[in-house]
C-alpha cells in the first residue's frame, strides 16, 4: 500500500509540474503583456524605460529561465501579486475556494442524495416504465448545456415567478441566513441537475450488475426479504465502483462549476479562473489553475485508495500506478 501510494503521489507531482510549465508557457501567449499595459497607462514612458522594466521583471529572459524563477518563488510560497485584486494571489484565491466549497459541496450532497437511492430503485426493474422515464431524465441532465439550464432557471424562478434572486451574493450588512440560502438556491439547483444524471446511471448499472451475481440468488433462495437482499447483499458491492466515480467527479467539480458560477455571479474558483484569464491577471490565473489541477489529482488519488480499501480482492501490488 505504501509503495503504491508513494508511486501515485510521485506521479501526481510530475503531472502538477508539467501542468505548471504548460500553463506558464500558454499564459505567455495570451493577448497583451504586462509591460504593454504599463506603457498604455503612462504616455510619458519611453522605449528605454520599457526595456528597463522588462529587464526588471525578467521579461527579457527566455521562457525556461522565467519559468525557473517563478517555480523557485512558488516553492517558497510566493505566487506573486494579483493585478485584479491588488493583493497577493494566494490571498485572492482563498475566499474564492471557500465560496466554491459551499456551492459545490451543497450541490454534490443534493445530487448524491437523489441519484443513489433513485439508481438503486430503478435497478430493481430495468426496462420498466419508471426506468425508462428516469433514463430519459438522466440523458437530459447529461446533455443540457449548463449555461442554457442556468438561463432557463433564471427565466422561471427569477424573472417569471420572482421567487429567487438571479445571481450574486447578499451584500447588505446583516443579511439573514434566509437571504444566503435564497442566493445559493439557483446555482445549487443548476449544478445538482447537471450531476444527477451521470451518478444515477452509474449507480443503476452497478446495481444491475450486482443483482446478477450468484450470491444474490443464494440470498433470495434462502428466503430473505427482497429489501434485505437489495440493501445488505447487493448494495455494498454495487457501491464500490460508484465510490470511485464519485471521488473522480468531485475533484473536477471545483473547476467544472466555472459556467454555473459565471452565470450566477457566484464568486468562486471557476469565476476567479475565468476572470483572471480574461483580465490578464497572470499570477492569479496560474495559481488558480494549478490549484484546480491539484484538486483533480487529489480526487483521482482518493478514488484509487477508496477502490483498494473497499474491494479486498484488489492487491495493491497489482494496481498499475
Amino acid at each position: 500500500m505504501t509503495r503504491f501510494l508513494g508511486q501515485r503521489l510521485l506521479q501526481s507531482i510530475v503531472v502538477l509540474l508539467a501542468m505548471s510549465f504548460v500553463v506558464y508557457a500558454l499564459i505567455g501567449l495570451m493577448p497583451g503583456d504586462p509591460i504593454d499595459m504599463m506603457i498604455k497607462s503612462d504616455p510619458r514612458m519611453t522605449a528605454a524605460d520599457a526595456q528597463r522594466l522588462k529587464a526588471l521583471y525578467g521579461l527579457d529572459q527566455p521562457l525556461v529561465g522565467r519559468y525557473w524563477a517563478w517555480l523557485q518563488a512558488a516553492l517558497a510560497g510566493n505566487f506573486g501579486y494579483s493585478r485584479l485584486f491588488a493583493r497577493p494571489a494566494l490571498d485572492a484565491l482563498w475566499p474564492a475556494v471557500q465560496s466554491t466549497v459551499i456551492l459545490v459541496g451543497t450541490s454534490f450532497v443534493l445530487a448524491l442524495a437523489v441519484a443513489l437511492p433513485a439508481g438503486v430503485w430503478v435497478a430493481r426493474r430495468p426496462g420498466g416504465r419508471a426506468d425508462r422515464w428516469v433514463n430519459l431524465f438522466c440523458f437530459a441532465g447529461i446533455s443540457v448545456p449548463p449555461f442554457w439550464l442556468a438561463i432557463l432557471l433564471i427565466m422561471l424562478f427569477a424573472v417569471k415567478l420572482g421567487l429567487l434572486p438571479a445571481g450574486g451574493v447578499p451584500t447588505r450588512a446583516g443579511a439573514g441566513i434566509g437571504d444566503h440560502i435564497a442566493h445559493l438556491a439557483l446555482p445549487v439547483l443548476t449544478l445538482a441537475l447537471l450531476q444527477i444524471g451521470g451518478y444515477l446511471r452509474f449507480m443503476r448499472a452497478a446495481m444491475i450488475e450486482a443483482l446478477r451475481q450468484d450470491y444474490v440468488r443464494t440470498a433470495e433462495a434462502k428466503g430473505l426479504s427482497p429489501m434485505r437482499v437489495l440493501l445488505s447483499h447487493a448494495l455494498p458491492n454495487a457501491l464500490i465502483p460508484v465510490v470511485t466515480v464519485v471521488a473522480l467527479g468531485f475533484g473536477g467539480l471545483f473547476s467544472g462549476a466555472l459556467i454555473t458560477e459565471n452565470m450566477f455571479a457566484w464568486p468562486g474558483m471557476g469565476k476567479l479562473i475565468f476572470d483572471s484569464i480574461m483580465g490578464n491577471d497572470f499570477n492569479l490565473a496560474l495559481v488558480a489553475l494549478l490549484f484546480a489541477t491539484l484538486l483533480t489529482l487529489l480526487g483521482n488519488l482518493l478514488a484509487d485508495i477508496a477502490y483498494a480499501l473497499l474491494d479486498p480482492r484488489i492487491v495493491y501490488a497489482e494496481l498499475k500506478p
Partner: protein
Amino acid sequence: MTEVWRRLRKRGAAMASALILAALASVALLSPVFAALLGIDPNAVDLLQRLSPPSAGHLFGTDDIGRDVLLRLIQGGQVSLFVGLAAALASAVIGTLVGLIAGYRGGRFDDALMRLTDGVIALPLLPLLIVLAAIDLTKLGVSPELATAPAMSLYRIVAIIALIGWTTVARLVRGATLSVRTQDFVEAAISQGTPPWRIMLVHILPNVASPIVVATTLSVGNVILLESVLSFLGLGIQPPWPSWGNMLTNAQELITAAPLLAVWPGLLIFTTVIACNILGDGLQDALDPKAEN
C-alpha cells in the same frame, strides 16, 4: 453487421435519435438553399427591425440587431454540427493511433503513452480549453489577418478540442488491442513477417472498431456542448458567423425583452446532444454481443 443493425432497429429511442440527427444535418447542409429561398442574408443587419416578433418575413422573428433568427439557427447548426463531427473524428484518429501503438508495442512505450493519457485526463478541462481558446495566435507567428479570420476560429476550436479529447478513445483502443494481439491470427501475421503498421491497421483495427464507433458518437455530443460553452463565453466561433453557442451570448441581457431568443439555440443544442448520447448508448448495446436484451 446485419446482426447489429437488427438489434439497433429494435431500440426505438436510438432510431428516433438517428432520424432527428439526420434531419438536423440535412437542414443544416441545405442552409444556402434556405437563404436563397427566403431571399435573406443571415448576416444582414437591420436596425429598424430589432427584436421583431415572428412574422411572415421572419418566421422566428429577428435578433437584437435585426437579423433573421431562423436562418441564423440553420447556419449556426451547420457550424455547430461541423465542429462536433470534425473534432470528434480528429480526437478519434489521435486516440486510435495512440491506443494502437501503446497496446501493440507494449512495455515502456505503453507505460509512457498511458502516463501521458492519465496526465491529460487529470487536467481541469474547461479552464484549459478557455486558456487555449484565448491564446493570441500572432504571438505564435500567425499573421494578424489570418489569426482574426472567422474561419480560423472554426479550425482553432476543432484543433484544441481534439488536442484534449483523444484520451477516452486511446484508453479503449489500447485495452481492446491488448486482448486482440495475443490471438492466433495476429501471431500468424507476425510469423509471416507482416510489418507492424500493417498488422495494426489491417488485423487489429477492424477488431477494435466497435468501441471507437461508440465513443466517437458519444463524443460528438460532448464536443457540441463544449463548442457551445466556449462560443457562449465569446471564445469559440467568432461573429458574424453564427453558432448555437454564440447566439446565446447576449441572451442573458435580453431575457425580459425577448425570452424566445434564449430558448431556440439552447433547445437545438440540447436536442442534438441528447440525440447523440441516446444513439451512442443504443450503439453500445447493439454492438455488445453479451447485452442481448
